[in-house]
């Protein structure tokens, strides 16, 4: 059976593992990006892992997409059944959520697109 000290040690290790997640994300940021598309046209590419909230106007209103350490997800959508909100996060390359009624799509893409996302903005 576990002694009191064994239990303390186990709990301490669990706490340390959980607490080290931000450290890992800090020192080893992922090279994944989310492409935001409206009616199939890419309007923005955002790096995953950043804390951001982006509002995108689709065909029937505004979709709000939240980015955090867990990935990207819709938090607001004008669609009637809010299926895209219920779909949760996209986080791995190839993950896609499509808000059909509003025509907005989130698609995780790999680091091959990193160069395009290098500037924060483009003047044209």
């Amino acid at each position, binding site marked *: 059976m576990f*002694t*009191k*000290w*064994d239990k*303390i*040690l186990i709990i*301490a*290790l669990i*706490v*340390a593992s959980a*607490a*080290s*997640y*931000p*450290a890992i994300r*800090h020192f080893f940021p992922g090279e994944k990006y989310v492409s935001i598309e409206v009616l199939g046209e890419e*309007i*923005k590419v955002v790096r995953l892992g*950043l*804390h*951001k*909230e*982006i*509002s*995108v*106007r689709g065909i029937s209103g505004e979709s709000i997409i939240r980015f955090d350490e867990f990935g990207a997800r819709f938090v607001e959508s004008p669609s009637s059944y809010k299926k895209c909100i219920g779909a949760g996060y996209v986080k791995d390359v190839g993950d896609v959520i499509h808000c059909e009624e509003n025509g907005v799509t989130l698609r995780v893409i790999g680091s091959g697109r990193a160069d395009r996302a*290098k*500037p*924060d*903005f*483009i*003047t*044209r």
Partner: protein
Amino acid sequence: MKIVKALKAKSILKYILPVIIVVILFSIWHFQRKIITVTKTRLVLGTVVEITVQGKNRGLLSDAVSAAFLRISEIEKIADRNTVDSEISKLNSLAMLGESKKIPVSRETLEMLNLARGVSESSGGAFDITVAPLVDLWNFKEGGQNRRIPEKGEIRERLKFVDYRNVIIDKSDNSISSDLAGIKLDLGGIAKGYAVDEAVLVLRGFGVESGVVNAGGDMAIIGNKVGGSPWVIGVQDPRDANKLIALLSLEDVSVVTSGDYERYFIHNEKRYHHIIDPNTGYPSNESISVTVIVKNTAKNKAKNTALADALATAIFVLGPEKGLELAESIDSVEVLIVGPSGKTFATKGVIDIIEYLD
């Protein structure tokens, strides 16, 4: 036996505990410095306007961005000559009727007119807000088959109405007047920048210290990114929309690009685009693209995007040689010009902020 085990665990903890404490402290620090970025986009001013702000309070940032968009819409209602009840439309209607008496205008219109006048004078008329009759004649807003090259006589006729000096601005009573019937004002070359500046004022009023207001490439940069690094702005390759020609590392500036690739058509292998030389009535072939950067200083923090907007058009029309001369004559202004042959020209200060791409 139990005592031995407890001692072993204690000695393990002695080494592990400091590590755990460090990790937990790092986590607390990491989450405390967590920066939130809020980005919203709207279709206003005839383009996609995107406002990005950074800070720690999501609610405040969101309110600031919404208020900034409201301000942009207000400017659009004043300055868009395609909106029937805008102030500038009303002014144009009166001017068409030959109304020569003084017409009171808003503070915003007066500011835009004054700024435009300054750029018109310093550029020898290369930027001119009375160019509207020519813009309408060329009609680059219409697509496809409606595009045509106007006859020389038509251009000559319209040129009679193009001269910024025909607009008399009276700052004493916030009014304008003109003796020339048929004159038509177009603030398109300055209003977008002005709206961006007004949005920045609203954001600063909310305490925003880091962000970018981007109106279709005309942008104002507030401070630098949270964390201290500059914002990186790509300059589009004027002949390939998927490429960049350079990266600019910028903080607390306005940056605007004008190019011959936004609205144009090709006829007999010649490119006809929307930047009209007010002196000839034809699209200017002196440049391919012009990027103007105006640094915010203690002296000039107010309307730098509007200034950059107007200067980008003026320098485009003037071309590399005279354009560089104009830019160098104004404090805190830098410019990157892609000349007619594709060669790039830049003011001296650009070297400190630019990374050219192959």
